């Protein structure tokens, strides 16, 4: 079947989709957006978290066909999404990664690319600064979930952070640096205001 939906502000079309495919599979294997991660495919780890019409969901539990006509934000679009939110504009439309850009994604090795010049959202920067990234496999899902938490609750208590992120497993960090990162992003956010 064919599925049309918007990803990171750009209309996308996937063809020959098998009806049992998940949104996660379509993003990763058909749209060149592998940032959302395939750690458990059973809704038990949060690595595949995306915003579906603004709501954080496990994309592994969304049938591809259910995404028809809907609006998806993935980690690849998080920086633009946060920027537009900060600027208070561009709910949809010509923001984010172009289809061409998205499909040009290709394998990159672990070189020393520091990505300087890449514009990051505050939560992305905080994860790097706080040492919240180790293997990084849980990171995309945690970023989407943390960003949404801070959007809802700019000044969360530790218990609020733990509750909001309780659907995202991390196996490397012991979560302490993730807590630090969310606190850091919240603090930076409140300084700006």
């Amino acid at each position, binding site marked *: 079947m064919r599925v049309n939906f918007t990803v990171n502000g750009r209309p996308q079309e996937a063809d020959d989709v*098998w009806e*049992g495919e998940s949104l996660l599979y379509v993003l*990763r*294997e058909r749209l060149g*957006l*592998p*940032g*959302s*991660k*395939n*750690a*458990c*495919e*059973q809704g*038990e*780890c949060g*690595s595949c978290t995306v915003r579906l019409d603004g709501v954080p969901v496990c994309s592994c539990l969304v049938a591809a066909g259910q995404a028809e006509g809907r609006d998806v934000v*993935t*980690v*690849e679009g998080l920086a633009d999404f946060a920027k537009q939110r900060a600027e208070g504009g561009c709910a949809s439309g010509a923001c984010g990664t172009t289809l061409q850009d998205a499909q040009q994604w*290709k*394998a*990159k*090795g*672990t*070189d*020393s*690319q*520091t*990505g300087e010049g*890449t514009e*990051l959202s505050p939560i*992305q920067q905080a*994860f*790097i*600064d706080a*040492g919240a*990234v*180790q*293997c*990084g*496999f*849980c*990171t*995309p899902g945690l*970023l989407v979930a943390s960003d949404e938490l801070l959007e809802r609750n700019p000044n969360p208590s530790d*218990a609020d952070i*733990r*509750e909001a992120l*309780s659907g*995202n*497993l*991390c*196996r*490397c*960090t*012991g*979560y*302490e*640096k993730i807590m630090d990162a969310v606190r850091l992003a919240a603090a930076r956010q409140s300084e700006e205001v």
Partner: protein
Amino acid sequence: MPTNGAPTKITQGSQTKGGIGESTLRPDGTLKVTGEFAYSSDMWHEDMLWGQILRSTVAHAEIVSIDISEALAMAGVYAVLTYDDLPTEVKNYGLEIQDTPVLAHGKVRHHGEPVALVAADHPETARRAAAKIKVDYRELPVITDEASATAPDAILVHENRDDHHAGHVPHPNIVHRQPIIRGNVEEARKRADVIVEGEYTFGMQDQAFLGPESGLAVPEEDGGVHLYVATQWLHSDLKQIAPVLGLPEEKVRMTLSGVGGAFGGREDLSMQIHACLLALRTGKPVKIVYNRFESFFGHVHRHPAKLYYEHGATKDGKLTHMKCKIVLDGGAYASASPAVVGNASSLSVGPYVVDDVDIEAIALYSNNPPCGAMRGFGAVQACFAYEAQMDKLAKKLGMDPVEFRQLNAMEQGTIMPTGQPVDSPAPVAELLRRVKAMPMPPERQWESSEGADVRQLPGGLSNTTHGENVVRGVGIAVGIKNVGFSEGFDDYSTAKVRMEVIGGEPVVTVHTAMAEVGQGGVTVHAQIARTELGVTQVTIHPADTQVGSAGSTSASRQTYVTGGAVKNTCELVREKVLEIGRRKFGSYHPAWATAELLLEGGKVVTDGGEVLGDLADVLEGEVVEIEEEWRHRPTEAFDLRTGQGNGHVQYSFAAHRAVVEVDTELGLVKVIELACAQDVGKALNPLSVVGQIQGGTTQGLGVAVMEEIIVDPKTAKVRNPSFTDYLIPTILDTPTIPVDVLELADDHAPYGLRGIGEAPTLSSTPAVLAAIRNATGLELNRTPVRPEHLTGTA
């Protein structure tokens, strides 16, 4: 009691920004937060096929027949392979003993063993085809424990063993046995005023890395194959893959893809050979990605263990002797079992002084899932048991458990049960003092003006208690782990370092085959290069097999060994650069010849601080590139009868204090705080060091209260291969983890550093168990402890 070791002398590069000792940020951080970092499961190729593995549905059976005809006839299916399709005489692989069939031959020995492979144009087509392969099994009795493995009439898991352990084991279903005898236990026992015995059980833990086994094999024009994969040791993979494919090693090119965690679970091969076989057969790129269910069958687990301990002590609290037997279940294939036995036996006494010991460790062959490497292997199981013993002894003697441990703590100069002297700082008593001295977390943090905050109570969001029957407990434990590969293994690493001028700036490229699995080796390598070569711009080349082996990312060894190799090669490059400088500029300034020269901040300076010139000028028109192997000091094998030998390179120590709150009526546990003190020798990157300690601590917490692969003892089948039923700690299960880092230099190691990755996983588990015992008064001789164990309803 040592509180300060020799300060580590770092002169070279101490003025260069981003060098060692700083918490520089990960070079791959930006790619990882933007979703661009290419993990092995993200690899994609035009025209690629999907590989699928058909696995055995039973644990132990003869294969009567395999019929692939229906699968092969399906549209979209490009290949179906079984044992008969293997191209050469080499049909097995293995880390130390090549006993693992690439595809089952006539027999399966564990639930989930690979039997056949499919390549198809879509994962669903591949799954449907695999489901159409008909395998006729004739089931055999299963071997599941020591009794069934060593019974006189036991079926042999592997017949006709000819490996190097076969000759000395008491039964062919024992992979390896290592006794350690020192002193005279019978005599020493007579001096004991108290004797404590215990029988302990350690459950089967899974690494549960989040990035599933995956990779992409691309056939190449020269008949070879290029494999992009997530692994812990590229060259070890290569040695096992190439012979099975019938290719010379240079025709199997391997590039490390992004690795989504490892923790030992990627030390053995998983999909590597399978993907290559399918790619070579079909002539197309083949991608294999396990799902979580398959991942539980696709890698080895931590050895479950039974541990029998006897300790004695005098009434003034001095240990007299220790006798133990440790039975590790290695499952169907050897994997790392021999090394796990070596660690378990040689570290079974813990970080304590005991002169008279009688130790025996064995690993079984059984029909349970194969077990092998996981963070802290061998030492983790032993630490759980000996720390329980220490608490029992202290209790029996009426002593404070920390003071009792301190009284018996090893220190620099202590002789290990293997006869090996501990020749670098061993601040065991000090680590215990530090965790004990940390401020206690406030009581009843769950109380708020709006009633109980269940998120901070046992049971969490499930709303099981509002404070009823919640009892606090505190426990302390300490452990010892060896660093690096032991027992005479030639444990080396290779680093290639290139220095040149690009755009007027001196730039260094570091190329190793080290598997970055998340630990931050790439960060540290860049720091070392900056320190040694006085530059700021360092590029880390992707890890591949175009450079010599870096050894495994395991055994807490990479910063030590590959870090040591990078340091060593950088030193050679520095000499070369200075040689060029002397040649070019020596005549302009006498200091070039007379002073000790350093590279700092992009300049050549004298040890007196005088700047002699810019590196950019020295290197103008020159490229310095050196590839060199580096080894730590050699170790020896343990004697097979006495266990004597200088088997280990270095030891690593950590202590934990756990504070728990237990709902004693429901048997639910909330860990409130898990404080750790660890000696790291030298923290090359303090932020990463703390991150490693916190992560290791949490894995220890997991196996204390929830993590266990449950195998049906009747069928040897895995009952919970999913993240629904194999639970790892969430952020609501994980407490704050304050870390106190001690830096006592080991003069034998680069920069005085100590391998750190594993030690925190050891003592975390027994500390939590001790705290639960403290809260409940129960004996608790197994881990993980489940609610039924705390409520008498097991």
